[in-house]
């Protein structure tokens, strides 16, 4: 157990940092949602049409 404390600064920081990040995420959430919609809309446009067929037809021979 003692050895797990070898990086006390990192695990200890985790709790505090998490609080900070959660807050900022919450504040930015509205903007982020718009951004996410924009990304997914753009990616919807370029995704291959028939996902199942496309994935099935990607067949490779093994390599190194």
């Amino acid at each position: 157990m003692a050895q797990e404390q070898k990086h006390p600064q990192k695990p200890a920081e985790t709790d505090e940092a998490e609080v900070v990040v959660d807050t900022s995420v919450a504040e930015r959430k509205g903007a982020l949602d718009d951004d996410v919609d924009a990304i997914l809309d753009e990616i919807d446009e370029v995704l291959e049409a028939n996902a199942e067929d496309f994935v099935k037809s990607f067949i490779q021979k093994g390599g190194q």
Partner: protein
Amino acid sequence: MSVRRVMGTEVEYGISVLGQPYANPMLASSQIVNAYASVSVQARRARWDFEEEFPLRDVRGWERPRSVADPSQLTDEDLGLANVILTNGARLYVDHAHPEYSSPEVTNPLDVVRWDKAGERVMLTAAERAANQPGGLAIALYKNNTDNKGASYGAHENYLVSRATPFTDIVRHLVPFFVTRQVICGAGRVGLGQDGRQHGFQISQRADFFEVEVGLETTLKRPIINTRDEPHADPEKFRRLHVILGDANLAEVSTYLKVGTTALVLAMIEDGWITDDLSVDNPVAALRAVSHDSSLTELLTLKSGRRVTALQLQWDYHDLARKHVEDRLGADADEQTVDVLDRWESVLTRLSNDVWSCAGEIDWVAKLRLLTQYRERDGLDWSDAKLHLIDLQYADLRPEKGLYHRLLAGGRMERLVDEALVATAVSDPPEDTRAYFRGNCLARYPDQVAAASWDSVIFDLAGRDPLQRIPTLDPLRGTKAHVGALLERCRDARELVAALTESLD
């Protein structure tokens, strides 16, 4: 004690003839290589020189008899498959059933990124040319490592290491690092198990394909540490560590950290700096366990009895490396070494605190974020074909189709190397290794180079028999500083060979 060392990458690309899933992949791969060569490789096409290839020589001191080797291990046989050497010093060829780009030798992680990215551009151009040829096929190329149906293909790294370092030290100190390195450079994968039949996300493309800790194979019973002893350098001084377990990365920071941190760990091992035994119990199982846990909370058991997460083990290596650099170099540490240490620390911190903040740097995080957003919006289960498609299409090299490229175009992925530098690296070799000599010989005297390899350039000088073989056994000779003026002066290879052999006499 720095990130600087002779290294390079070799990437086998996934290949798909669109609309023809059962097309012969060797033929399609040959079309890719030949389409590129038909325009970019001048006049005569230099052969690959296999003289210094020993795929069955084991670093542990023995050689496997050819009679018991798997045919896929005989990589020193010229099968007549398409194979060209580029003016940037790289090798573009068909390996097994995939087109492969082996980068020229470089000396630092940023140049690894630059010439690895140049390889993507070469492949993309090759596919465009193949499609435009009469009767040409529409071929899509993927920088990934599995088809999720049981097949895997590699993205290897090569590092020149000191022969004086006992191989057992390399194994002991590198295995725990390799088991956990994927958290900072995994490419992400939808599907668990070699055939991807179980549903879920994992950090690494390759983890499920590794079956032993140490071994010579690369295509079956894949080992975490590969023992092929083919140094392509003075075998008394060096070995070439051939790393086969990494994922093919698209994110520049992932590639940079992958090779930069590995170079730092190798420097510590060569210097005898790591005294703690960080060995992991059952490393093959641990490699998979780490890959299958994107929450990064899985505890690994070390031989010492300590229980740690992959992140904690990475922190151990990071802290050791930082102390090593401080102790040996202090304020004289070069910029890239400091940058790799700082970025390593930064991603480890953020992977604990705010994983999505790493989405512009680490492939698996970028991919998982996209998948998570889709799952939330459309209520998709991990078995959904759309999620598998996103995984596959992330790696599509076509800028209009590839999801990595869409994220990049949207400013969501961090770049380390200017596109202009990538563009010149498609044709120009690095200036600080023997790749400079090789690439320049091909660019300047294309009709007079009969063959070349990492260790040689062979000239065919009309009226002079036999062929003139110029060995290039030292990766750090043949640089611009070393032969730049000579190459400028020699109008043809005859003058060059005369000057080189005179200087040897």
